[in-house]
């Protein structure tokens, strides 16, 4: 299923656990009032961000959605600055100006979360254009949801990328719902990947909760893109573990049997990865797994404490950064 080294496999598992625990803490801190506004949890979809980003190299770029924490972590963002941003503090990635829906780290090629559905798709296409003009083989990856695939910018961007053979990989995280609307009612075909036919590009469907399947699909699409053969749509079938946002006053229309089924160990991307690794001898002895979880826990405790200690931004700083000097 994969020929990644044991180290890389464990590193991927660690990132997936980091994302899950980050989201759990974010939910908790949202409810305790330390995090404001809105939080969209990526729990349940970790295999996609991690599977794809593991296939990238330095200089490659990604863009995210409103559900952005997982993409940040998978691309290597700093947990302290992420948590501080959620806490609205001066040491956050955006100096407290962005919050959950607007975390970016341009220095690592993470071009940002986005509060507008499909808002990032054309931006990452432009990053792909820049990469093509640079001619250094870099690629750009746009993450977006099944809901976003029905929006105009999806079409305009993928059509241009296909016509211009831009090195962009469009990764649809099909978690089967857009807030309370099922994808099957919104997307005209059963699969978002079917759309690829309309652009003459490959449309690959993968089990989005199988990190290696995702990774393999990403490796192929990225190789294609680096070779100048143009874009690919990867549709990763998945499910979100939690309601649309952490706001409890918003209804969740998903049938509870459906939700429960996806919460089981045989569906959970992290449990599945652990099982897979454990099936290979010596790859993930219990102590290693425990150790890894402890490391993650410590890192996140450190991130929370970093955030807590960081000051709120001075009010005058609200008027800074409107324009670059």
């Amino acid at each position, binding site marked *: 299923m994969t020929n990644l080294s044991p180290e890389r496999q464990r590193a991927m598992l660690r990132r997936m656990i980091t994302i899950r625990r980050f989201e759990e803490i974010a939910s908790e801190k949202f409810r305790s009032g330390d995090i404001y506004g809105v939080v969209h949890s990526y729990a349940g979809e970790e295999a996609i961000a991690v599977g794809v980003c593991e296939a990238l190299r330095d200089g490659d770029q990604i863009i995210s959605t409103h559900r952005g924490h997982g993409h940040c972590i998978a691309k290597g963002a700093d947990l302290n600055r992420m948590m501080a941003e959620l806490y609205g503090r001066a040491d956050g990635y955006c100096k407290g100006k*962005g*919050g959950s*829906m607007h975390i970016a780290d341009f220095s690592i090629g993470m071009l940002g979360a986005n509060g507008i559905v499909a808002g990032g798709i054309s931006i990452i296409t432009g990053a792909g254009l820049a990469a093509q003009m640079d001619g250094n083989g870099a690629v750009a990856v746009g993450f977006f949801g099944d809901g976003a695939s029905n929006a105009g910018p999806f079409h305009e961007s993928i059509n241009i990328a296909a016509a211009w053979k831009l090195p962009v990989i469009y990764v649809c995280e099909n978690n089967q719902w857009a807030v*309370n*609307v099922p994808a099957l009612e919104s997307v005209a075909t059963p699969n978002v990947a079917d759309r690829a036919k309309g652009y003459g590009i490959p449309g690959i469907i993968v089990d989005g909760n199988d990190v290696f399947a995702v990774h393999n699909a990403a490796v192929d699409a990225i190789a294609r893109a680096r070779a100048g053969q143009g874009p690919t749509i990867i549709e990763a079938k998945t499910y979100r573990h939690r309601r649309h946002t952490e706001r409890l006053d918003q209804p969740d229309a998903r049938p509870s049997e459906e939700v429960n089924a996806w919460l089981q160990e045989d569906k959970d991307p992290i449990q599945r990865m652990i099982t897979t690794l454990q099936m290979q001898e010596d790859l993930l002895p219990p102590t290693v797994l425990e150790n890894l979880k402890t490391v993650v826990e410590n890192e996140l405790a450190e991130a929370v404490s970093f955030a807590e200690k960081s000051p709120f931004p001075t009010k005058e700083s609200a008027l800074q950064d409107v324009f670059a000097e």
Partner: protein
Amino acid sequence: MTEMKELSYVDAIIEGIAEEMVVDPKIFHMSTEAPRRLQEEFGFPRVRQTPIAESALTGMAIGAAAGGYRPIVDWRLVTFCFVAMDQIVNQAAKIHYMFGGQTRFPLVFRTTVGGGTRRAAQHSQSPYSMFMQLTGLKLVLPSTPADAKGLIKTAIRDDNPVVFFEAGRLGGVKGPIPNGDVSIPFGKADVKREGKDVTVVALAWMVHEALAAAEELSKQGIEVEVIDPRTLVPLDIETIRSSVFKTGHLVIADEAPAAASVSADIAARIVEDAASFEALKAPISRVTGLDAPIPYSPSLEDYVFPDRSRIIEAIRRIL
């Protein structure tokens, strides 16, 4: 006197819509998230949940209106309507005129404006002023449940495209709702409090801040008149002008940024008219959002938006 019931601002709007939907089978409602009460009361096909395609929804409403329906499209947060801006600017606003008035386009676009929810720049906007440049749209911005209910009914009955801006911060605020058919005409400002010393024109959430400021200043002997225009197009400048004749002082309070805004427009209209220009005893003062996108952190967001204390400062500055 019949007893009045209480409803929240949002529930009042939904009740207004529901009442109209009962009466007129041509009304239907589309949005990416359907209001639960409407869904339960009317169901599909009159209440539709849609793909995330606000541009298509907006255009579809126009086409359905041409076919004799009275569509209501809820864009939800106003920030989502920008993907539909071509349909708003180039189609909805101009279609009646462009085709020489051949047919009617009874449309309501609902949308939520305003900040204060810690949802950062994209999700905290109040861009109604931008729509004022688009001749051909009626624009509503209520500040109380009763006004909201009364104006949504008028909006639905109007034969033109109406953008109905709902103040997010007021969504849960309760207020009395008169019984009976409570529709409120467009273009009639409401004097929310009478006063003789200074006129404060306030919009949406700022109406309540202005009333709080008036209460405070009243204790110090300053009587503030608070006027809520309620509709931006048509704008009832006459009521504002009359108040300025009385008070000689004008403050305009709006959480949107000042540049090229309704607050600028009201100021300009007052000083363009010889009589109201003469009546002014002091500079006009605007109390608006500061010149920045809306930041996330509470310490920042609270600084960017105006409030009662800034209204009080502004009044003091010109009195």
